[in-house]
């Protein structure tokens, strides 16, 4: 059992594992590079931002997205690991959704990429299911008392993405301009979309 021994430097452990697995033909440098590049360059919150911008500008798409998130997201070509069943939650002036995974760090990879550090932090995971309004305030989002908060703990293979409210003053924005405004944090529900 790994537990019995002295701590090993995390980076050194990774190198040692990679070295042993490479020797055994179980992993190779090219595969590692492909994976890393994929999640650094092509799978990230820019995908979710396109989904949101399309939902803001195309009412029929928005309806499909809220009825069957996985299929509507798939229409834009976004699918893959951790995206088997995606549910989209619409924030409104009276309801604010925020997403967490208290048991690990489940996250909708196809639309948001890999989770950011704060999402994986025990402080966020422990507190947002107990005092979400206070947590959101610490993040800089001070919601009116009239807004009902709904916290979603991703404990199964269902993954959640928040459809944030479209900010006022963006009526003449193109879909691409809108997508540029949408942040990862807004699609988890810890921020609102702002106009610069």
């Amino acid at each position: 059992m790994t537990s019995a021994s002295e701590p090993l430097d995390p980076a050194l452990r990774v190198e040692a594992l990679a070295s042993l697995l490479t020797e055994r033909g179980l992993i190779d440098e090219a595969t590692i590079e492909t994976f890393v590049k994929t999640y650094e360059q092509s799978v990230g919150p820019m995908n979710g931002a396109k989904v949101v911008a399309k939902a803001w500008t195309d009412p029929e798409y928005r309806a499909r997205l809220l009825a069957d998130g996985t299929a509507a997201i798939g229409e834009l070509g976004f699918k893959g690991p951790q995206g088997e069943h995606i549910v989209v939650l619409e924030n409104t002036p009276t309801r604010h959704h925020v997403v967490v995974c208290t048991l690990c760090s489940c996250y909708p990879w196809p639309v948001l990429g890999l989770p950011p550090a704060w999402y994986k932090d025990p402080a966020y995971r422990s507190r947002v299911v107990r005092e979400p309004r206070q947590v959101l305030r610490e993040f800089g989002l001070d919601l009116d008392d009239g807004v009902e908060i709904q916290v979603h703990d991703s404990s199964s293979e269902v993954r959640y993405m928040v459809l944030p409210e479209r900010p006022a003053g963006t009526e003449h924005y193109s879909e691409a301009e809108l997508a540029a405004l949408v942040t990862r944090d807004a699609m988890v529900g810890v921020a609102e979309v702002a106009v610069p």
Partner: protein
Amino acid sequence: MDGIHDVGGMQCFGQVPPLTAAPPFAEPWEGKAFVIGALAARISGGNLHAFRHAIERVPPQEYLVGYWNRWTIGAQTMMEDSGIVTDEEVRARAARLAGRDVPEPPPPTPHKPQMPSGGAGNLRPLESPPAFAVGDRVRVSDLHPAGHTRLPRYVRCRTGTVAALQPSAVFPDTAAHFVGENPQHCYTVDFDSRELWGPAAEPFRLSIELFEPYLEPAT
């Protein structure tokens, strides 16, 4: 298992970190760690649930070092369980990479788990009808299994309302231990925050997915 990973509602972790827009991997080793973990189930003959359970078994002091550390140790644990590597080998190789001339132990004999799979992914259609319907009041059972579960402590023994039926899926509690996919109905259950945290709690609604074996009718 009631481990360090089950942090929902704990009060000891302080302020939330800032919302920084950092890249997915702060350092190159983190990217490599990600790939090793992402491939660990395939390499070891395991599955996603076994990987999560391996991370849960990371000792608390190591778990709290950071995400990619627990992810890597979890991947290694799953590979140790299948005889792909041993901890002694990893430590010896690490020492050699660090420039120390230590002997390397022989590799183990692989013994991968053999569990029949109903296909790719985790969603599995079920013939049997669900026991609960939207609107039903349900109580979460007082279950404390020693192995893997997706039932967090903070909802046990609490009463909520079924808000939605989700697709039936592989049951993590058995799949993680390779004793069968054992697909189950899965529900979104809503709880009033005061049911979870007492009358002084912030008012809000907590929604969580719970598998049918975790639930009983509220009386």
